[in-house]
């Protein structure tokens, strides 16, 4: 065994011990509250209209255009059912936000809409007009409420410091300034090296924008500590939270997904050729390097952020602070629920290859989970149907050097499988589990569909 593999095995073992399978958990997706969703959307619309009506100056049309784009983007998130408006998680998130806001009364909470997004990305966003989206893909990686509070404080800081709007105004002011327009006009008149001059101008603008972006992040971190120190949350968790963000490129249940373990059946053995790939590898190293250019990063490195905050955290640390204030049990219940919601929303939003991958990672920890076993069959059935109709590309990612190696391996397999083989994999996977899960109605439905595909 290679040392790396040994380490992975050890990590896997520890992971299993820490996440002792609680097989009694039965996942049922949260049901959104449509009336709450409508109310929130109305307030967001009202705020957008107000923001536009308050605009003045020469560039108000351009700023209004960007505000409109931002509003449409938010609206789309509601329309695509990405925003979680179910009562239980929303009440919890509101209680968490209240805990911060009530201890910082100098900041106005009017116009704030803090919501969970079902997105799998480990991220949270302050849209700038009062909407804050906390992705469940980030929330379910956290270990305690204090870490979640730090994330909220950080996004609230962006809002109170007006970073987003300032950025829009700064961009528009620069682009439509006489100086910039003059530069563009003189470039436009050039017969030669026009694009070279434009590239230099655009790069300069981008560098400036990214530099401001990184400065905004430091400022938001700093203000987040100021907000958090007034609460009774454990401020040290701000640093552990940043460490978690630092490893966010790895999935929560990051495992070596050995496809052969899941899809090798006596009647239908696994074929090594399924995982083969001979993609053209050209100039891979060079491109990776260019991605790492510090000056183009939108966020500073988490290690640097931790270093900057460390002293303040030590200073603000207080005895009697708590990791949990609202509810430890509700927090843990949400973490568990969100593990599944991430997969469920991937399925609902047509990201089938990603849903399948997450389910395969997670099933290694919870092999007896009816939902995970069902969802794997369901994803395979979806692959079958869409491949048959030549729309597979709409629900699966193509292999990409930017993806995780394990995920790429699954994507290559999907590309290599023939239609009949997909039907067979689904059928034999579910057949093997039939005695255990057939009483679970969604399983029976998926299994029966796989039988039809496989003509059984």
């Amino acid at each position: 065994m290679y040392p790396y593999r040994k380490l992975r095995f050890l990590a896997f073992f520890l992971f299993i011990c820490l996440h002792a399978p609680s097989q009694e958990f039965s996942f049922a997706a949260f049901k959104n509250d449509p009336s709450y969703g409508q109310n929130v959307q109305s307030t967001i619309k009202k705020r957008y209209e107000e923001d536009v009506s308050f605009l003045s100056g020469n560039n108000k049309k351009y700023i209004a255009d960007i505000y409109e784009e931002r509003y449409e983007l938010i609206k789309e998130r509601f329309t695509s059912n990405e925003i979680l408006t179910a009562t239980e998680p929303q009440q919890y998130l509101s209680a968490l936000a209240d805990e911060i806001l009530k201890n910082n009364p100098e900041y106005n909470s009017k116009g704030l809409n803090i919501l969970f997004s079902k997105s799998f990305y480990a991220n949270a966003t302050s849209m700038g007009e009062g909407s804050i989206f906390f992705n469940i893909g980030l929330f379910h990686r956290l270990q305690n409420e204090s870490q979640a509070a730090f994330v909220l404080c950080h996004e609230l800081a962006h809002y109170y410091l007006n970073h987003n709007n300032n950025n829009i105004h700064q961009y528009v002011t620069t682009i439509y300034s006489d100086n910039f327009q003059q530069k563009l006009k003189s470039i436009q008149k050039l017969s030669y090296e026009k694009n070279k001059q434009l590239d230099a101008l655009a790069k300069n603008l981008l560098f400036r924008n990214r530099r401001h972006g990184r400065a905004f992040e430091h400022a938001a971190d700093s203000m987040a500590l100021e907000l958090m120190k007034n609460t009774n949350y454990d401020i040290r968790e701000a640093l552990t939270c940043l460490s978690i963000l630092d490893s966010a490129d790895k999935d929560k249940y990051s495992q070596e997904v050995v496809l052969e373990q899941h899809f090798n059946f006596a009647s239908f053995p696994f074929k090594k050729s399924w995982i083969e790939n001979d993609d053209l590898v050209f100039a891979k190293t060079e491109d990776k390097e260019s991605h790492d250019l510090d000056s183009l990063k939108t966020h500073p490195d988490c290690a640097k952020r931790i270093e900057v905050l460390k002293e303040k955290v030590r200073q603000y640390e207080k005895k009697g602070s708590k990791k949990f204030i609202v509810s430890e049990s509700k927090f843990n219940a949400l973490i568990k629920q969100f593990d599944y919601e991430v997969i469920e929303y991937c399925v609902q939003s047509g990201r089938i290859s990603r849903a399948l991958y997450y389910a395969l990672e997670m099933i290694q920890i919870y092999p007896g989970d009816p939902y995970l076993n069902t969802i794997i069959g369901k994803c395979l059935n979806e692959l079958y149907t869409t491949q048959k109709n030549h729309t597979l590309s709409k629900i699966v990612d193509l292999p990409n050097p930017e993806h995780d190696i394990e995920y790429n391996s699954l994507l290559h397999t999907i590309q290599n499988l023939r239609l009949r083989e997909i039907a067979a994999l689904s059928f034999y996977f579910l057949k093997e589990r039939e005695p255990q899960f057939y009483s679970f109605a969604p399983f029976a439905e998926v299994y029966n569909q796989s039988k039809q595909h496989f003509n059984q």
Partner: protein
Amino acid sequence: MTLWVILLFSTTQLLAQSKLSIDNVYSVTLRNSGSIIENEEIKGYYFFYQSDKIDKRTNEYTLQVLDANLNKLKDIKFQDSKKIALMESSYNGSSLVFMFFDEDQNMIDYRLYDMEGKKTYSYSKILDKRSEAYFKSVPRLGNDEEAENQSLYDIPNKGFLSIIPLREGKKYTYEVNFYSSDKRKAWNFNPLEDGKFTQAQYLGANDSIAIVEVLSKLKLTSKEMESTLVGINLMNGRKVFEIQTQDKGRKMYPMNISTVAGKSEYIVMGPYFESEDRVLQDKSEGLGVWAMNNAGKIISSKYISWANDVSKYIKTDFKGRLADIGYVYFHNLFQTEDGKFFAVGEGYKKTASALGIATTVLSAMAGSYGGGFSTAKMKVTDMVLLELSDKFMLENATIYDKYNNNVELPSGYEFMNPHTLALLLKTSGSFDYSFTQMGKNKGSFVSGYTDFEKGKNYRGLTFNSISYHDGQLTTDKINLKTSASKLHLLPAKPGSVLLMEYYKKDKRLELRMEKLN
């Protein structure tokens, strides 16, 4: 996931508010795009942009290299003459080559890159009067069968072979050039000129020799055509053999060769004719397969005839025509990894044209001679697939039914025989066959063709495929009428096709890779 391509428009118009933005001053022009091919397999794509103007004579170019999954791998930027064109690209397992034509300097430039993306070698070839004609006439926006190159071929891990047609007045000949990828080395092979009208086609290579089929006629208008196979030593470019493709009183016109790794023996395949027949005028007798050695000697041969062999699977008439299908034109012949041979063909017939007859009668009544159309027309019929064992025995012949297309012919063409007309159909792209793509190590293949469906649920063009995988043949169909304003289908990595859908209203081009079943 679906890939979205935002179209770049090279306009510099002002905004309504007289304000400029970087986007609408920026101007990039796509010069052309194509596939990166290794051993008949699509490994990636290139997009060749003119990214800036440097001075009166020089442009800046960006050559974007994508893998077969459309992931951008590298942008290669360089400055060059404003009159250069990227002709073709190939991959040989260790190097990529891009073949440029510089019209200013009348030069072909072969630029080789290693897998790290570094330029390793550059080979230039100054064109003379004889070779420039071809490059000035060849289209630079792809060819009929986009899964194949026209003049640039990979020699695995060794280099690249380029075959250039030469023309001087009425003399037509060719030359073969080899450019090494592991060290700076090149050789050139020029045949002895015998004054004949000569064309060369690369058939393939084994470890030591490249095999080229040379078709020659005494004159351009001659109906008699002679085929020879020329074996060229890959080390030094010297001719190893030159043989006429005749055997046991039969003439064969090879279309492909198949090699077995580690063996010097190779298989040559093609339609065959009786020795007195003329290939441009007479129908083929069937399919011939030879096993040959490096000295150009035929070790064994087998002939599958329409009349005696194919007729056991498909009904043929006394003229040797397949019933309802007519004659068969072979588009591709190849051997798969399991040793089997396949021949992909398409039927054609010459029939009377009601339109031609009517216009001829009307013209005669009006006192003029002849109408715009011929009184005969060509009917393109069904697809035919022949399957042979590794011992060259015919194992199956299958007809894939499709809508029979009528191709009206210009006036005067009624006097041409159907086989000459079939060559014209091929040249004009009137056959429905699209392409054949081979899978990894030739373990599988997909042959595609278009059809027209007049069903209750769908009426319009369809793309149809015949796939061979794990010893099984399957078919699939994609409807080409979608909500998009235009849809174009291109060959992609083995087992997939690339669908390009253009939505006119949104000015949006959507590229998606779909697997065939």
